């Protein structure tokens, strides 16, 4: 599901409310049959993952690639007193990173702060999907990347989401992305949903139609 809308329309508010960084004024929020209306971010993360707009936000820069993956692997047990390095971990991580085609599999012990923006965002994406969340939130996750990297990360997103059959909510400014990806399109304006199309109906929509709606 792709969400578009002009600045200040309420896209990010929607996303932050779901993620738990913004408190809810009214109504109820249910995730995989659990009431999470007033639950903290960490609690919701059992069912939910998020890729931030800023590549620096989704990863811990001081920690290594492997350590970041460990954090993302299980969203429970963060207080466990068991050692976090396990046998066979390196091989497993290499296998995970290989399909990204970014050379990350050879940089497991590199601190994430030394990676490029594209590499960091690809890693964030992989981390967000590692726990097989019920809902994946993408917050304009390609907006801070150059056009080519942005395209690469978008293709990767498509691949991971389809392979894992993940319910995904993507916020974007790029109308072309909103039209190309996903099977449902929602347009937000002034805090209200202005357009909600899915399936075949969505296929028929063109960029010009959207622009017309924006102008209203």
């Amino acid at each position, binding site marked *: 599901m792709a969400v578009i809308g002009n600045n200040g329309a309420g896209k990010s508010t929607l996303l932050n409310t779901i*993620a738990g*960084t913004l408190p809810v004024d009214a109504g109820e929020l249910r995730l995989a049959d659990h009431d999470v209306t007033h639950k*903290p*971010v*960490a609690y919701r*993360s*059992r069912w939910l*993952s*998020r890729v*931030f707009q800023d590549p*620096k*936000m*989704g*990863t*811990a*820069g*001081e*920690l290594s690639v492997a*350590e970041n993956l*460990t*954090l*993302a692997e*299980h*969203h*429970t*047990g*963060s*207080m*466990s*007193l*068991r*050692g*976090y*390095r396990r046998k066979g971990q390196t091989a497993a991580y290499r296998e995970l990173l290989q399909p990204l085609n970014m050379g990350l599999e050879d940089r497991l012990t590199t*601190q994430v*702060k030394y990676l490029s923006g594209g590499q960091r965002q690809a890693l964030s994406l992989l*981390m967000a999907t590692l726990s097989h969340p019920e809902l994946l939130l993408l917050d304009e996750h390609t907006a801070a990347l150059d056009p080519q990297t942005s395209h690469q990360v978008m293709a990767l997103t498509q691949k991971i989401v389809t392979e894992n059959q993940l319910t995904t909510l993507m916020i974007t400014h790029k109308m072309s992305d909103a039209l190309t990806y996903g099977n449902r399109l929602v347009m937000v304006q002034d805090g209200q949903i202005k357009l909600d199309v899915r399936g075949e109906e969505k296929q028929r929509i063109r960029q010009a139609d959207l622009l017309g709606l924006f102008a209203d």
Partner: protein
Amino acid sequence: MLITSIGQGLLWAPLVIGVFLTFRILDIPDLTTEGSFPLGAAVTVSAMIHGQSAIVASLLGFLAGCLAGWVTGMLDTKLKMPSLLAGILTMTGLYSINMHVMGKSNVPLLDQKVLTSYLPATWSVDLQTIVVGLGVTALVMAGLIWLFRTRLGLSLMATGNNAAMSAANGIYTDRMVILGYMVSNGCIALSGALIAQSNGFADIGMGIGTIVIGLASVLVGEIFLRGRQIWLRLAAMVLGAVIYRYLLTVAMGLGFPVDDLKILSAGILVIVICLPLLRNKLQTKQQLKRYLKQIGVDEHATTSSLKRQAPTEGLLSRDSK
């Protein structure tokens, strides 16, 4: 003189490790130090006077420090106070608590057995101090090295590095911050307990300037020992504590009166903050020179304009993530 510094430095090492935990791992300058250090001393000395053994009393000092850290942690996370203010509040409150614990502003130990009394009496005081300091510091280091190998320790590091990302990955960051404050102040109080036993008294004013001592030692240690592994970083803290003590001893040997030690401490902190900055600047300049020579450009034509853009990353900067 060096031997004495090593002994004293080892007694201060838990404090430096404690400051390292909040300052480097959690990225918080925690002023609770100034209160939890004398708290550890006060609790330990009082417990010993009331008949507890030195070991039990030191442990009580450690736990009291944890409690102080818990208070700061709650103020910081649950009441959403800026961490500096949270530390100042706890530190100020602890002054009264320390007075109540001690009953008066200076409590001497009489003939109670201190930790060094468990060692053979034939050993010199310096040797006894080193053995006790080494033992306690090794214990603290071993505990922390174990902690940072567990998932909990990893969560702690992640929280200090990127709280938003940690929360998104299921880490309850508030709990982590509180835990960090507790362990940190426990270590600091333990250091207070050791110093009180070494001095033979607890004093209400012994916490003044400890945060400066701690920060300076952290930075000194990092100048001499750099690395990413946790054991190396902790070892750097111990080294920092020893070198810092040595610097102060040298200063006293030069005839500085005891009252001037605080301004000296502050001066040392300023210097160790500036040194790495200067070193970075110098390195960038040299690298640029070498590079320009390589590509055969007249350096005078370009360095002046490029020099200004050379990045120098501050030691205390938070934006290096």
